[in-house]
């Protein structure tokens, strides 16, 4: 007898349903298997507790007043009348016993929560329609923006809004792995925002291979979606080869400056106490994070187009896209941090774009700062106040005051969780709407 068979036999034994042959085999097995001996005690305890719990909840679940059940007679109308009579008797018995009870506090709580839930659902629908409208406008705006970091900001805004409209159900992907990429690509172009959002969410579940199949379909996608797929592919498959790799003398120290294809910057130099390494996600971040090293290197410029130690380094291979931020924003970082990521990405996109259009990097940075300040002043996450409508509370109260206490307590707990979820979703979508508007403003400001 194997342990697997023994465990099944143990259950039968505890149920008092084991045959002598099997019992003999089980006892032989138990004599030599300590793990299965422990199983006997654990399973006995579990079975006892399960039995007790079922008795406690269901053992007394039969109603106090048993409905009158009458056998059918040969005349159908008599049967109909009997059934109707049963309904009347049961209904009458049910209401008279409960009608004169005072409204329990739990009933008021439940009615309040139900009304609150109505309020949140209404607000959610209204916010969803605003979000859909704003996302549609941004999508259109993106399609008229030239390719680059700014357009990425818009594309991510569109995707972010779509995710907020996706609902809770995940997309059912085809069984066949080879079909998943193309399937998601088709759904990304769906006119239905919920489907589009599900497809965006589904992208994070794709393997690298499936993602590359999706990327093959990129030509079929429209503007914002195409950028998004490229960005996600970029973030899944980090381009870790150096695009710029130079050695310079800075303050008499041999220093190596590397920029990888995904934009990451790494500076290595021999320090007094051994080799020192400085890193950042891109040139702009590097300059912010390591000002002393930057000054020593006389580092200027933006990704792919930098001046190191007075020598200009250009590389088309550096994507100069804010790939490092994309996953953080896309996959919904928790409240608070996502705004910072959005702002940082927006700022980086603005600087890159302005520098490319001919401004010196210092000018680009100062102009980008002005634009970001303008956007910040004009936006801010609005928090919708949702209150329970007193009229709705009364309507719900008439229905729930007849419930028994156990049901009320359980329902109150369930509703509290549901309302908390709705509140959270509403706040998330408010932030998404804010991001979409920020992206719209950014694209507009850059055009000006």
């Amino acid at each position: 007898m194997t342990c697997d068979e023994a465990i099944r036999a143990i259950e039968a034994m505890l149920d008092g349903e084991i045959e002598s042959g099997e019992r003999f085999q089980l006892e032989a097995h138990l004599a030599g298997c300590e793990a299965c001996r422990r199983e006997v005690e654990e399973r006995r305890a579990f079975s006892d507790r399960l039995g007790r719990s079922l008795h406690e909840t269901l053992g007394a679940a039969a109603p106090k007043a048993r409905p009158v059940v009458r056998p059918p007679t040969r005349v159908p109308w008599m049967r109909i009348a009997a059934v109707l009579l049963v309904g009347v008797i049961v209904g009458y018995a049910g209401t008279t016993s409960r009608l004169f009870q005072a409204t329990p506090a739990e009933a008021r709580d439940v009615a309040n929560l139900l009304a609150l839930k109505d309020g949140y659902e209404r607000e959610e629908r209204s916010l969803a329609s605003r979000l859909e409208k704003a996302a549609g406008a941004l999508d259109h705006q993106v399609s008229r923006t030239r390719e680059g970091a700014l357009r990425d900001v818009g594309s991510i805004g569109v995707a972010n809004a779509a995710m907020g409209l996706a609902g809770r159900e995940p997309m059912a992907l085809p069984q066949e792995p080879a079909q998943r990429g193309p399937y998601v690509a088709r759904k990304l172009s769906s006119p239905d925002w919920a489907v589009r959002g599900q497809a965006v969410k589904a992208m994070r579940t794709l393997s690298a291979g499936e993602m590359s199949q999706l990327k093959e379909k990129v030509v079929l996608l429209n503007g914002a979606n195409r950028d998004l797929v490229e960005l996600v592919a970029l973030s899944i498959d980090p381009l870790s080869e150096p695009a710029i790799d130079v050695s310079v003398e800075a303050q008499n120290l041999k220093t190596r400056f590397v920029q990888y294809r995904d934009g990451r910057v790494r500076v290595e130099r021999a320090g007094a106490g051994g080799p020192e390494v400085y890193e950042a996600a891109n040139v702009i971040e590097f300059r912010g994070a390591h000002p002393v090293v930057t000054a020593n290197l006389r580092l200027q410029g933006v990704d792919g187009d930098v001046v190191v130690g007075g020598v200009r380094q250009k590389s088309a291979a550096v994507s100069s896209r804010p790939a490092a931020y994309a996953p953080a924003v896309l996959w919904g970082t928790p409240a608070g941090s996502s705004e910072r990521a959005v702002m940082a990405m927006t700022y980086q996109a603005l600087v890159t774009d302005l520098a490319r259009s001919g401004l010196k990097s210092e000018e680009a940075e100062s102009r980008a700062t002005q634009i970001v300040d303008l956007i910040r002043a004009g936006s801010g996450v609005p928090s919708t106040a949702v209150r329970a409508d007193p009229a709705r509370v009364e309507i719900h109260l008439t229905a729930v005051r007849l419930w028994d206490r156990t049901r009320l307590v359980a329902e109150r707990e369930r509703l509290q969780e549901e309302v908390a979820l709705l509140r959270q979703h509403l706040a998330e979508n408010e932030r998404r709407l804010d991001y979409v508007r920020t992206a719209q403003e950014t694209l507009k400001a850059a055009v000006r």
Partner: protein
Amino acid sequence: MIAADTLIQAARMATMPPDEARLVADLKAGRKEAFDRLVELHYDRLHRLAFTMTGSDEDAADLVQETFLAAMKSAGNFRGDARLTTWLIAILRNRFTLHLRSRRKWRHAPVEAAGAVRAPESQPAVRPAVAAILERVRTLPEELRTALVLFYLEGMKYAEIAEAMECPVGTVRSRLFEARERLKKMLEGAMP
């Protein structure tokens, strides 16, 4: 062949408790008192089972009512080779399945009612941990749920459950095993 069948049936009737054999005979004869007695004897048991299936008192009462009416209609077909309890449970399950197919009304009931555990008002409130167990039980497929209820609440033997659920005894054993395995996984840390 007919004679042999009749003999077997007579032998089975002989193994039935005398009260039940009388009741079956009266039911077959269409006596109204027999029907009342049948309801009296089996209402609570069927209601408990119907309640775990539908998740609400009202739906359970409807289902039980339909079960008794169907039983009355087909009393003539009761062959006496099963206990009345198992026969009624089999009818109840068939009615439930019919509803699932036709109206899809009950299908959603366990989920919707999962948070609304009810106990009679005169009973003390059910402890949350115990209510949580019932909630998990309700998420099990019907055949696992029914096997559990018949075993733990009705105290039926594997063979009786097999008869009521119209399946082999080995299936009852594996259903109970499966049900407990699933519950154990779901309830890790949630048991009182």
